[in-house]
């Protein structure tokens, strides 16, 4: 078991900066995810850790050892590819034992180890099948077993669930997490699916355009986003644009199209700053009394309602045609439906609203 240290790494391809000064430490035995849209540099980081790419600046340390100049075959890491890259011309057992084969382990021992791993992934006695005879989920597990065969200190997973259908994906999430807890090694997981990242990870690094925007556990990232990108990328969020008119007692009051609104000010916004106020759909509640002087409520016109069972989603007119304000109401027996065109008052707890400096928003 080893920690992985990314010491100020920058990776450039020509003029293109794929990873910009990434500096973080992944603890030993941790399930760590890199979350970000495609092209944000997360796969490049993974390749740098596994040894397929070299950082232009900075260094990768695994277990305290600088990995510079050490090839992928010599690193204590194992990589699971996005398309799994199982060997189609070998049996399942041969696939799993391939790493042992190249290390010169005797066939009998190999076979035994393969059986152990097949038990671990709950595919006992399937070793003689060909890869093509397995289902998508089974292949997934074989890929994990193959990577675990070398007893790596760090397992790297490059969006391994993206090819599976939704149901299987959800099942494999808990399966992966369970396997990780059983073997107890460091998992570094790459994904663009925030559901995967939030449910499985101990900690998450959210990335955009080569820059690590925030590192934290799921709740921290969801509740206290550090940048406007994280706020808009992780979960759903309503963004209100405006200028800061007052900053006091850890709150910022922002003058928006819907009047003055208050939110938590952790990033030290001062009067006159351009800012976003982010309010989650589930933080909004309908209210009867909206007062112009009140900075925790506002009004808007209802555009449509969508009933989803456990939630009722209400869409209201915003400053942006494309992105209406969204309110999510938990369905209880007494939930009230509203007519389209009606003006509705909404209030929120200012501790659930986050004021952040203006910046990049994730497009959905």
């Amino acid at each position, binding site marked *: 078991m080893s920690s992985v240290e990314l010491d100020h790494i920058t990776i450039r391809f020509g003029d293109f900066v794929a990873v910009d000064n990434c500096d973080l430490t992944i603890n030993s035995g941790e399930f760590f995810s890199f979350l970000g849209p495609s092209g944000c540099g997360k796969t490049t980081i993974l390749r740098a850790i596994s040894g397929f790419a070299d950082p232009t600046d900075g260094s990768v340390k695994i277990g305290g050892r600088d990995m510079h100049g050490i090839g992928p*075959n010599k690193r204590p890491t194992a990589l699971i590819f996005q398309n799994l890259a199982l060997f189609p011309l070998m049996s399942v057992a041969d696939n799993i034992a391939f790493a042992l084969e190249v290390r010169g382990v005797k066939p009998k021992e190999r076979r035994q180890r393969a059986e152990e791993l097949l038990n671990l992934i709950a595919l006992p006695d399937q070793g003689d099948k060909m890869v093509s005879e397995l289902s998508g989920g089974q292949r997934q597990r074989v890929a994990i077993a193959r990577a675990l065969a070398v007893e790596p200190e760090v397992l790297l997973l490059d969006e391994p669930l993206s090819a599976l259908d939704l149901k299987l994906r959800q099942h494999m999430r808990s399966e992966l997490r369970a396997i990780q807890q059983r073997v107890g090694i460091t998992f570094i997981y790459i994904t663009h699916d925030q559901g995967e990242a939030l449910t499985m990870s101990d900690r998450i690094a959210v990335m955009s355009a080569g820059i690590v925007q925030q590192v934290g556990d799921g709740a921290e990232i969801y509740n206290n986003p550090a940048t406007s990108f994280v706020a808009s990328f992780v979960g759903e969020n309503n963004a209100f644009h405006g200028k800061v008119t007052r900053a006091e007692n850890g709150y910022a009051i922002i003058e928006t199209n819907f009047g003055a609104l208050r939110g938590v000010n952790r990033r030290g916004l001062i009067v006159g700053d351009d800012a976003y106020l982010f309010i989650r759909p589930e933080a909004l509640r309908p209210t009867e009394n909206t007062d112009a002087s009140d900075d925790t409520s506002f009004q808007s016109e209802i555009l449509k309602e969508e009933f989803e069972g456990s939630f009722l989603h209400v869409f209201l007119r915003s400053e942006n045609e494309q992105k209406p304000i969204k309110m999510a109401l938990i369905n209880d027996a007494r939930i009230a439906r509203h007519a389209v065109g009606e003006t509705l008052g909404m209030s929120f707890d200012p501790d659930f609203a986050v004021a952040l400096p203006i910046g990049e928003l994730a497009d959905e």
Partner: protein
Amino acid sequence: MSDPTGSSIGMLAQVQITPSLPTPSKPEPQAAPATSTGGFSINPSLPGSTPTQQVNPTRTPQLPGGSPSITPSLPGTTTAPTATPPETPVVEESGIGFSEVFIAIIAVALIMLFVRRRSGRLSADMRLTKFVRRNGVAISIYLLTFTTGWIIFMIALPQLYMFDFSFRHNLLPMEIGGPKDVYTLKNYNYLLFGREGGDELLNWLHLEVFFKTIIASVIVTVLNFLLCYPLAFFMAQMVKGRGQRLLFLCLLLPFWVNEILRAFAFKLIFAELGLVNTLLVGLGILDQPYDFLGANVALYTGLTYAYILLMIFPLYNAIESLDHNQIEAARDMGASWLKIHLRVVMPHAKPGIASGCTMVFMLTAGALAAPNILGGPSSLWFTQIIYQWYNTGGNWPQGAAYAFVLLLSCIIFVRIMMRVFKVSLGDIAQR
């Protein structure tokens, strides 16, 4: 393409092409071929070609001026290029000439026109089959006519004709169809046992040449594979875009130069005072020029290079379809480069390897120009003996028998190799 027939065509084509060689050496007066031993002429003595050998029934074209440098001399052959043999009806009978092909094409075109005009009822009937429905009437007829025509006229008939020929006596034109014109195994017997009543138990000279040809072809094929595999891998997996196109061009362009010219260029390079010797002596590696031609270095080099594309492209296609992640996965799991190739790349590329090796082996065993031009004085390629039977020896049935023995042996050899390496015929035709 299915290999055996394909390569046999190649072989026959070469047999036919070679007589029309431009003569590179000074025109000599109509010297009797037996005296021409200068230069690099191959001078094999065919055992048992008896002085009583009958006059060539001459279906073989003779070059005016002859070609002393490549004419193998058969001692005892009374035939001289100057002998004007009588025209025989066999000429019309044997060849599927240019005119026939031309007429066939015209006929197809006419049929297509006809079909166009009266497509109504005819197409209504034909549209019942799925093939026609999918391709349309005109194209279906074209495809069917072309492929069946190809198979029958280009492959089956000529080969069958030669096969039949190999079981006949070498008769005078006037005797053909007469009482003497019966089937015999003597042509095949000859290859094994030599002349009837000869002193030797077996026809060692020809058998030795035969086995040497097969073994040399295997060596050339292996050499070719060893040369091409790294290059094909590099082109398929390591370079992309402009670099790849440049490499392809570099490979293809030299083959715009015709085979004969290339062979003679090799001859010049490897000659006693050629580039290689000058270089090696100049650098002090050799004390005196080495006889590369005599040692067949030039021959093997020339043969290897001649069919390099037929190895490169199947290999390239096969390796190119391999998911690069599989290579990286194997590397990540600690596999050495050798292991990656043996366990991942080569198993995947096996059909391509089989296809390339089959092609190169068949064509090498059937090569004529390169052995003629580059072969050392002591070496003889089996095709050269075949060529001699047809051309100088004037014994077509004997030549046909030899050619069929070569073809069948090559097919059997290839099939055994495919069995050993567990490759099916379908794998080979896949690309």
